[in-house]
Protein backbone atom coordinates (compact mmCIF):
# COMPACT_ATOMS: atom_id res chain seq x y z
CA UNK A 1 0.00 0.00 0.00
CA UNK A 2 0.98 3.61 -0.40
CA UNK A 3 1.49 6.17 2.36
CA UNK A 4 -1.94 7.69 1.90
CA UNK A 5 -4.85 6.25 3.90
CA UNK A 6 -8.21 5.83 2.18
CA UNK A 7 -9.67 8.56 4.40
CA UNK A 8 -6.96 11.03 3.36
CA UNK A 9 -7.28 9.99 -0.29
CA UNK A 10 -11.05 10.56 -0.30
CA UNK A 11 -10.49 13.98 1.24
CA UNK A 12 -8.49 14.98 -1.84
CA UNK A 13 -10.81 13.70 -4.54
CA UNK A 14 -12.45 17.01 -5.35
CA UNK A 15 -9.16 18.86 -5.55
CA UNK A 16 -7.96 16.08 -7.86
CA UNK A 17 -11.05 16.36 -10.07
CA UNK A 18 -10.62 20.14 -10.15
CA UNK A 19 -6.97 19.70 -11.28
CA UNK A 20 -5.78 21.53 -8.19
CA UNK A 21 -3.37 18.84 -6.96
CA UNK A 22 0.27 18.90 -7.99
CA UNK A 23 3.66 17.51 -7.05
CA UNK A 24 3.90 15.05 -4.19
CA UNK A 25 0.21 15.31 -3.25
CA UNK A 26 -0.81 14.34 -6.77
CA UNK A 27 1.76 11.54 -6.99
CA UNK A 28 0.66 10.12 -3.62
CA UNK A 29 -3.00 10.12 -4.58
CA UNK A 30 -2.34 8.54 -7.97
CA UNK A 31 -0.20 5.86 -6.34
CA UNK A 32 -3.00 5.18 -3.87
CA UNK A 33 -5.58 4.95 -6.65
CA UNK A 34 -3.46 2.42 -8.51
CA UNK A 35 -3.58 0.15 -5.50
CA UNK A 36 -7.08 0.76 -4.15
CA UNK A 37 -10.09 -0.32 -6.19
CA UNK A 38 -12.58 0.94 -3.62
CA UNK A 39 -11.19 4.49 -3.80
CA UNK A 40 -11.25 4.30 -7.61
CA UNK A 41 -14.97 3.52 -7.46
CA UNK A 42 -15.58 6.38 -5.02
CA UNK A 43 -13.62 8.78 -7.20
CA UNK A 44 -15.64 7.71 -10.24
CA UNK A 45 -18.84 8.46 -8.30
CA UNK A 46 -17.56 11.92 -7.31
CA UNK A 47 -16.88 12.66 -10.97
CA UNK A 48 -20.28 11.27 -11.94
CA UNK A 49 -22.01 13.44 -9.34
CA UNK A 50 -20.23 16.60 -10.57
CA UNK A 51 -21.26 15.88 -14.16
CA UNK A 52 -24.79 15.06 -13.02
CA UNK A 53 -25.22 18.38 -11.18
CA UNK A 54 -23.52 20.43 -13.91
CA UNK A 55 -25.88 19.00 -16.53
CA UNK A 56 -28.85 20.15 -14.43
CA UNK A 57 -27.82 23.73 -13.76
CA UNK A 58 -30.68 26.05 -14.67
CA UNK A 59 -30.52 27.36 -18.21
CA UNK A 60 -32.05 30.64 -19.18
CA UNK A 61 -31.74 32.78 -22.26
CA UNK A 62 -30.70 36.39 -21.82
CA UNK A 63 -33.87 38.48 -21.37
CA UNK A 64 -34.34 40.72 -24.39
CA UNK A 65 -34.65 43.96 -22.45
CA UNK A 66 -31.85 43.46 -19.95
CA UNK A 67 -29.14 45.35 -21.82
CA UNK A 68 -31.41 48.38 -22.25
CA UNK A 69 -32.36 48.20 -18.57
CA UNK A 70 -28.71 48.22 -17.54
CA UNK A 71 -27.85 51.08 -19.89
CA UNK A 72 -30.67 53.12 -18.34
CA UNK A 73 -29.52 52.26 -14.80
CA UNK A 74 -25.94 53.26 -15.64
CA UNK A 75 -27.11 56.53 -17.20
CA UNK A 76 -29.15 57.34 -14.10
CA UNK A 77 -26.18 56.49 -11.91
CA UNK A 78 -23.82 58.64 -13.97
CA UNK A 79 -26.25 61.55 -13.81
CA UNK A 80 -26.39 61.50 -10.02
CA UNK A 81 -24.53 64.39 -8.42
Amino acid at each position, binding site marked *: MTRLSCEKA*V*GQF*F*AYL*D*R*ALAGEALADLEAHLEACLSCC*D*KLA*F*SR*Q*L*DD*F*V*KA*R*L*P*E*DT*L*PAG*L*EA*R*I*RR*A*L*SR*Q*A*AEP
Partner: protein
Amino acid sequence: MSGGGGETVDQRRRRLEALALPYLGDLYRVAVRLTGRSQDAEDLVQETYIKALAAFPALREPDRIRPWLLKILGRLVLDRHRAPAREVAVGDLAELDRFSLYDLVWDEDPLPYSDNLHRDFLAQFPDDDVRRALLALPEVYRVPLVLLYVEELSYRDLADALGCPVGTVMSRLHRARKILERELWDCAKRRGFVRGGEA
Protein backbone atom coordinates in the same frame (compact mmCIF):
# COMPACT_ATOMS: atom_id res chain seq x y z
CA MET B 1 -5.63 52.50 -17.05
CA SER B 2 -9.22 53.32 -16.37
CA GLY B 3 -10.42 56.68 -15.26
CA GLY B 4 -8.16 59.37 -13.92
CA GLY B 5 -7.35 62.61 -15.67
CA GLY B 6 -10.24 64.76 -16.71
CA GLU B 7 -12.67 61.95 -17.51
CA THR B 8 -16.27 62.79 -16.62
CA VAL B 9 -18.59 60.23 -15.06
CA ASP B 10 -20.51 60.05 -18.30
CA GLN B 11 -17.35 59.36 -20.30
CA ARG B 12 -16.48 56.67 -17.79
CA ARG B 13 -19.96 55.18 -18.21
CA ARG B 14 -19.55 55.02 -21.97
CA ARG B 15 -16.15 53.35 -21.67
CA LEU B 16 -17.53 50.85 -19.17
CA GLU B 17 -20.46 50.06 -21.45
CA ALA B 18 -18.15 49.49 -24.41
CA LEU B 19 -15.82 47.23 -22.42
CA ALA B 20 -18.22 45.44 -20.08
CA LEU B 21 -21.56 45.04 -21.83
CA PRO B 22 -20.18 42.40 -24.24
CA TYR B 23 -19.98 40.14 -21.15
CA LEU B 24 -23.61 40.68 -20.16
CA GLY B 25 -24.57 37.18 -21.35
CA ASP B 26 -21.76 35.57 -19.36
CA LEU B 27 -22.71 37.43 -16.19
CA TYR B 28 -26.36 36.58 -16.58
CA ARG B 29 -25.54 32.90 -17.12
CA VAL B 30 -23.62 32.79 -13.83
CA ALA B 31 -26.22 34.91 -12.02
CA VAL B 32 -29.16 32.75 -13.00
CA ARG B 33 -27.31 29.67 -11.77
CA LEU B 34 -26.44 31.35 -8.51
CA THR B 35 -29.91 32.67 -7.80
CA GLY B 36 -32.11 30.12 -9.53
CA ARG B 37 -34.55 32.84 -10.59
CA SER B 38 -34.53 35.00 -13.69
CA GLN B 39 -35.74 38.15 -11.90
CA ASP B 40 -33.15 37.82 -9.12
CA ALA B 41 -30.46 37.20 -11.73
CA GLU B 42 -31.42 40.37 -13.62
CA ASP B 43 -31.27 42.41 -10.40
CA LEU B 44 -27.90 40.92 -9.51
CA VAL B 45 -26.43 41.66 -12.93
CA GLN B 46 -27.70 45.24 -12.84
CA GLU B 47 -26.20 45.71 -9.38
CA THR B 48 -22.91 44.31 -10.69
CA TYR B 49 -22.73 46.91 -13.47
CA ILE B 50 -23.63 49.76 -11.09
CA LYS B 51 -20.88 48.63 -8.73
CA ALA B 52 -18.49 48.29 -11.67
CA LEU B 53 -19.13 51.90 -12.72
CA ALA B 54 -18.10 53.15 -9.28
CA ALA B 55 -15.05 50.87 -9.15
CA PHE B 56 -14.01 51.34 -12.79
CA PRO B 57 -11.15 53.80 -12.10
CA ALA B 58 -9.51 51.11 -9.96
CA LEU B 59 -9.47 48.57 -12.82
CA ARG B 60 -5.79 48.30 -13.76
CA GLU B 61 -6.05 45.73 -16.56
CA PRO B 62 -8.95 46.42 -18.93
CA ASP B 63 -8.28 43.14 -20.76
CA ARG B 64 -9.10 41.35 -17.48
CA ILE B 65 -12.49 43.01 -17.20
CA ARG B 66 -14.42 39.74 -17.50
CA PRO B 67 -12.93 38.11 -14.34
CA TRP B 68 -13.15 41.51 -12.65
CA LEU B 69 -16.90 41.65 -13.33
CA LEU B 70 -17.35 38.07 -12.13
CA LYS B 71 -15.49 38.95 -8.96
CA ILE B 72 -17.84 41.87 -8.31
CA LEU B 73 -20.86 39.66 -8.95
CA GLY B 74 -19.62 36.89 -6.67
CA ARG B 75 -18.81 39.27 -3.86
CA LEU B 76 -22.21 40.93 -4.12
CA VAL B 77 -23.85 37.56 -3.51
CA LEU B 78 -21.54 36.79 -0.61
CA ASP B 79 -21.95 40.25 0.96
CA ARG B 80 -25.72 40.19 0.58
CA HIS B 81 -25.95 36.99 2.54
CA ARG B 82 -23.18 37.51 5.03
CA ALA B 83 -25.18 35.93 7.83
CA PRO B 84 -23.37 33.77 10.39
CA ALA B 85 -26.43 31.53 10.71
CA ARG B 86 -25.90 30.22 7.17
CA GLU B 87 -22.42 29.00 8.11
CA VAL B 88 -23.77 27.27 11.20
CA ALA B 89 -26.63 25.73 9.24
CA VAL B 90 -24.36 23.12 7.67
CA GLY B 91 -23.90 21.51 11.09
CA ASP B 92 -20.87 19.68 12.41
CA LEU B 93 -18.09 20.16 9.86
CA ALA B 94 -16.11 17.04 10.76
CA GLU B 95 -19.26 14.98 10.39
CA LEU B 96 -20.00 16.70 7.09
CA ASP B 97 -16.50 15.98 5.78
CA ARG B 98 -17.04 12.27 6.51
CA PHE B 99 -20.48 12.13 4.85
CA SER B 100 -20.47 9.77 1.90
CA LEU B 101 -23.44 9.41 -0.41
CA TYR B 102 -21.51 6.66 -2.19
CA ASP B 103 -21.27 4.60 1.01
CA LEU B 104 -24.90 5.18 2.02
CA VAL B 105 -26.21 4.07 -1.36
CA TRP B 106 -23.84 1.13 -1.38
CA ASP B 107 -24.87 0.02 2.11
CA GLU B 108 -28.61 0.37 1.53
CA ASP B 109 -28.56 -0.99 -2.04
CA PRO B 110 -31.95 0.51 -2.93
CA LEU B 111 -31.89 -0.85 -6.50
CA PRO B 112 -30.88 -4.51 -6.10
CA TYR B 113 -31.38 -5.34 -9.79
CA SER B 114 -29.29 -2.46 -11.06
CA ASP B 115 -26.00 -3.22 -12.78
CA ASN B 116 -24.83 0.35 -12.11
CA LEU B 117 -26.23 1.19 -8.68
CA HIS B 118 -24.88 4.70 -8.19
CA ARG B 119 -25.66 5.92 -11.70
CA ASP B 120 -29.21 4.55 -11.50
CA PHE B 121 -29.67 6.01 -8.03
CA LEU B 122 -28.83 9.50 -9.34
CA ALA B 123 -30.98 9.05 -12.43
CA GLN B 124 -34.11 8.89 -10.25
CA PHE B 125 -33.91 12.55 -9.22
CA PRO B 126 -36.00 15.04 -11.16
CA ASP B 127 -33.94 18.01 -12.40
CA ASP B 128 -35.76 20.38 -10.04
CA ASP B 129 -34.64 18.39 -6.99
CA VAL B 130 -31.02 18.76 -8.05
CA ARG B 131 -31.45 22.51 -8.59
CA ARG B 132 -33.12 22.86 -5.21
CA ALA B 133 -30.24 20.99 -3.59
CA LEU B 134 -27.80 23.40 -5.21
CA LEU B 135 -29.79 26.43 -4.10
CA ALA B 136 -29.92 25.02 -0.57
CA LEU B 137 -26.15 25.50 -0.31
CA PRO B 138 -25.19 28.50 1.79
CA GLU B 139 -23.77 31.21 -0.48
CA VAL B 140 -20.27 30.80 0.92
CA TYR B 141 -20.25 27.32 -0.65
CA ARG B 142 -22.57 27.91 -3.61
CA VAL B 143 -20.65 30.83 -5.12
CA PRO B 144 -17.32 29.00 -5.56
CA LEU B 145 -19.05 25.82 -6.75
CA VAL B 146 -21.12 27.60 -9.40
CA LEU B 147 -18.09 29.61 -10.55
CA LEU B 148 -16.15 26.35 -10.79
CA TYR B 149 -18.92 24.52 -12.66
CA VAL B 150 -19.84 27.34 -15.03
CA GLU B 151 -16.56 29.18 -15.51
CA GLU B 152 -14.15 26.33 -14.77
CA LEU B 153 -11.92 28.74 -12.85
CA SER B 154 -8.73 27.45 -11.25
CA TYR B 155 -8.49 27.49 -7.46
CA ARG B 156 -6.10 30.43 -7.73
CA ASP B 157 -8.56 32.44 -9.83
CA LEU B 158 -11.38 31.49 -7.47
CA ALA B 159 -9.30 32.63 -4.50
CA ASP B 160 -8.70 35.93 -6.26
CA ALA B 161 -12.38 36.34 -7.15
CA LEU B 162 -13.56 35.54 -3.64
CA GLY B 163 -10.80 37.30 -1.76
CA CYS B 164 -9.71 34.29 0.27
CA PRO B 165 -6.72 31.89 0.38
CA VAL B 166 -6.50 28.91 -2.00
CA GLY B 167 -6.81 26.55 0.99
CA THR B 168 -10.16 28.10 1.87
CA VAL B 169 -11.37 27.63 -1.71
CA MET B 170 -10.32 23.98 -1.51
CA SER B 171 -12.18 23.30 1.73
CA ARG B 172 -15.28 25.20 0.60
CA LEU B 173 -15.47 23.28 -2.67
CA HIS B 174 -15.06 20.01 -0.80
CA ARG B 175 -17.80 20.91 1.67
CA ALA B 176 -20.07 22.28 -1.05
CA ARG B 177 -20.10 18.84 -2.68
CA LYS B 178 -20.60 17.12 0.68
CA ILE B 179 -23.60 19.33 1.46
CA LEU B 180 -24.97 18.55 -1.99
CA GLU B 181 -24.56 14.83 -1.31
CA ARG B 182 -26.36 15.21 1.99
CA GLU B 183 -29.18 17.23 0.40
CA LEU B 184 -29.64 14.56 -2.26
CA TRP B 185 -29.70 11.82 0.37
CA ASP B 186 -32.34 13.73 2.37
CA CYS B 187 -34.31 14.23 -0.82
CA ALA B 188 -34.05 10.52 -1.62
CA LYS B 189 -35.51 9.74 1.81
CA ARG B 190 -38.38 12.19 1.32
CA ARG B 191 -39.17 10.71 -2.09
CA GLY B 192 -38.99 7.17 -0.79
CA PHE B 193 -36.04 6.18 -3.01
CA VAL B 194 -34.30 4.87 0.13
CA ARG B 195 -35.33 3.86 3.61
CA GLY B 196 -32.71 6.18 5.03
CA GLY B 197 -30.12 4.51 7.19
CA GLU B 198 -27.73 7.05 8.66
CA ALA B 199 -23.99 7.25 8.07
